[in-house]
Structures are given as structure tokens and as C-alpha cells.
């Protein structure tokens, strides 16, 4: 190693700071995507033609365009868009974090909404019929019968989205966010030790992905109270 130990630890400290930013962005992005996605998913079950049209266009764009492009669009064009929306006198400086958070939310809310639709499709129709036959009103049926089962049906897909968001988070460094990957790149360039720092950064994500498994298994067990066998 051709740098002093003090310098080395300095870079490690910088990477840890970056890791905190990455975790913050990932957590807030995933949470917002989840909240908006579930809301959008339920709203777009409606057959209202306007809602359907807006949803189809939104989903199609998100599914067809790289998230990196959306990050760039919101970062470069964010303040112009906000001015367009709220009037010209407003001036907001769009930070990389803000643009990244907005992009992750907009992109992955669509995926969560798709997931909600899939879960409703996979719910046996008998569940809806039994509610109707028991004279349970639709709103109550959703709250007490449908939603609790959707949570369980959507969980595996949600874990998937969690992992994808995790691996999309570093893209925001390309909009100038000073996150783990940006700092790894600085450290690698300065120390000429790309392997050390990039492998360390990779391991952060590998370990974070690996930790997801026990977490999701635990959640699955909690949701699956007495559901070893699921019948039609």
C-alpha cells in the first residue's frame, strides 16, 4: 500500500459517512415508494377511464425507461418543473438527494402498485364471494379480509423490490450525491487502490442484500400465522 495508514483510515471514515447517506436515501426512498405504491395500486383498481389512462401511461413510461434517466431528468429539470407547477417566483434548489429520492419514489411506486394488482389477482375469488354472501360491505371486506391477505401475497415481490431499490440507490451518485460509491471512487482514485475500496463498497451491498433474507423470512412467518397450506 503506497499511502500512510492515517490517510487510509481517513478514506475509510469518509466511506462510512457516505454509507450513512446511502442508507438514508435507500430507506426513505423505499418507504415513500411503498406508501405511494400501495395507495396508487388500490386507486388504480378502479375502472374509471381517466384513472386507467393516467395509470397506463405512467406505468408504461416507468417500465420502459431506465431509472438513471429519470434521476437525471429530475435533477437537471427539477427546479424548472417545480417552477412550472407552482409559479415562476418560486425558486427551489434541487439537491441530488432530493432528485434521487423523488426518482426512486416515482419509479418504484409503480412497481409496488403493479405488485398490489398482482396480489389482488392471485387472491381466490371465493374470498370476495364469501364476503358478498355474508353481506359484508365492500369497504369492510377490504379492510378486514382482503388487505391482510394482500400483505402476505405481496411480501415476496416486495422483498424483490427492496433488493432492486438497494442496488439502484448508488445511481444517484452520478447526479453528484456524495454517497458510499462516490466516496469509494474518490478514495480509489487518490490511493490507487481500486480493489480495496470498490470491493469494500460491493461487500456493503452484498451483505445488505444477504441480511434481507432472514428479515423477510421472519416477516413471512409473522404473516403466515396458521397458513402452511393455502387453499383455493
Amino acid at each position, binding site marked *: 500500500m503506497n499511502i500512510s495508514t492515517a490517510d487510509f483510515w481517513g478514506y475509510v471514515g469518509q466511506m462510512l459517512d457516505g454509507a450513512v447517506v446511502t442508507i438514508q436515501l435507500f430507506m426513505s426512498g423505499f418507504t415513500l415508494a411503498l406508501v405511494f405504491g400501495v395507495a396508487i395500486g388500490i386507486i388504480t383498481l*378502479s375502472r374509471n377511464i381517466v384513472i386507467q389512462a393516467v395509470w397506463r401511461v405512467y406505468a408504461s413510461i416507468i417500465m420502459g425507461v431506465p431509472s*438513471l434517466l429519470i434521476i437525471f431528468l429530475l435533477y437537471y*429539470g427539477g427546479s424548472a*418543473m417545480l417552477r412550472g407547477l407552482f409559479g415562476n417566483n418560486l425558486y427551489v434548489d434541487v439537491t441530488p438527494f432530493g432528485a434521487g429520492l423523488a426518482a426512486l419514489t416515482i419509479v418504484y411506486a409503480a412497481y409496488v402498485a*403493479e405488485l398490489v394488482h398482482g396480489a389482488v389477482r392471485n387472491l381466490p375469488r371465493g374470498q370476495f364471494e364469501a364476503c358478498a354472501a355474508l353481506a359484508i360491505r365492500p369497504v369492510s371486506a377490504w379492510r378486514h379480509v382482503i388487505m391482510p391477505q394482500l400483505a402476505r401475497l405481496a411480501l415476496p415481490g416486495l422483498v424483490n423490490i427492496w433488493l432492486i431499490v438497494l442496488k439502484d*440507490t448508488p445511481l444517484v451518485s452520478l447526479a453528484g450525491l456524495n454517497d458510499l460509491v462516490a466516496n469509494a471512487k474518490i478514495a480509489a482514485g487518490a490511493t490507487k487502490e481500486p480493489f480495496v475500496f470498490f470491493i469494500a463498497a460491493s461487500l456493503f451491498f*452484498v451483505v445488505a442484500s444477504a441480511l434481507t433474507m432472514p428479515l423477510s423470512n421472519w416477516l413471512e412467518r409473522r404473516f403466515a400465522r396458521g397458513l402452511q397450506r393455502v387453499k383455493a
Partner: protein
Amino acid sequence: MNALPIDPALAWESLPAMLRGLMTTVVVTVIVLALGLMLCVPVTLARMSRNPLLAWPAAVFVVFFRGAPLLILLYLVYYGFGQIEVLRDGPLWFIFGSAFACAVIGLTLNHVAFMVDVVRGSLEAVPAGLTEASAALGIPPRDTFRQIQLPLAMRYGLKAYQNEVVMFTKGTAVISVVTVIDLTAVANEVFELTYDPFTPMLTAGALYWCLVNLIRLGFRKLEAYLSRHHIAVEKQRQPASAGFTALAARWKLALSQKEQVL
């Protein structure tokens, strides 16, 4: 946002460069997909092998290259190769030193790791009853694999493969970080020249959208071809699904039978 300042003249002017960028994106995608199809077979076999000397390294490979973000893998390959003296002074440096090759290598590592799971998942999705039935008929294991398991697994795996191809194609947008001039790189250049935040990104977005939907269309054709024998079955089942649609109609739900994305 009703008045997005899109500049048609700029879009038109930058279109040739954009299309050249799109070409690069397509070439990289095709090369890596081909490499992925070739390399996933030995790695999957190793991963599923009972020999721990094969299974363990393959498992580590998959966990690492699946879990690491593509962006870091590209940095690792691009900046890392230059540090390896054998490579730098070797005869193949004209390959390993080129940005294009680094992009292909980084993408391939990531893609192969995902492909191993796609292939493994599809093989495991073939019901055990079918292989047992085949064995009970006296068909040798080799033929059972080739005649029963493989064709069925291809059908089961097609959806997962399509998702991976689409995700991967969109993922190639980061290769500009190793100085490959792909579609996203061109859009960025146009932005830096004009400071028009909307026109280049939206033009590039439209081109990506066309590419991705072309891929989806291709897969739909392929799927229709591979599942010819299912069509009769689907027709028989129609009342049930029609019934569900009717039910959904009553509950005012809009459930299209469209593909699931994840």
C-alpha cells in the same frame, strides 16, 4: 407541467447522435446477452452440482455479482484492470484496456449471476411428477432431461428471462461511467452543450421505451410460439377467468391480464 419546454429542433438535430448511442446500447446488450446464455450453463451446472468444490465457488460468484450494484462492478473492472500488471503488460491489453470491453465484462458478470437463478428456478419449476412419470416409462435420465425437463423449463423460465433482459437492458444506461458513448451518454452530452434539461432526456427516454417494448413484443411472439399446446387448455378454462373478470367488474376492479413486471 403542461408546458414542458421541449425543443423539437434540438431533438431533430441531436437525433443522429442519439441513434448512434442507441446502436452502442443495442450492440452491448446483444453481446452480453449472448455471453450470458453461453456462460450461465456451466455456472448453473456448477451451482447445482453435488460436488462442493464446484458448488461453493459458483454460489459465492452468484451472491457477490448479484448483490453488488452494476455501477460498482463497472468501476471495479475499469479502474481495477489497470492495476493488474500481468494484464497491463500482457498482449491482450488492447482488449482489457478498452472501455467497451470493460463495460461488457462488468455487465456480463452481473448478468450471468442473475441468469444462474433464472435457469435454476425454471428447472426446479418442472413438477417432479413429470420426471417421475418419464422415469417410470423407462426413459433414461439423459433423455428425460433433454426431452421433458429442458423444454418445459424453457417455457416456465421465459417470463423470468424476459424480466431479466428488460431490467438488464435498462441497466446498461450506466455504462457511460466507463466512457462508453451509449444513448444515456449522448443525452448527457447534449444537456451539457445546451443546458436544456428536458429535450435530450425525453428523446433518449422515448428511444429506450421503444427498445424495451420491442423486446417485450419479441418475447410475446416467442411465448405464443412456445406455448402452442396451451391454447386449447386456455380456451377450456375461459369460463373461469371470464367469471373472475365478471366478478372484478362487479367489484369495479380493473384487472387486466397483462404481464406481471417483477
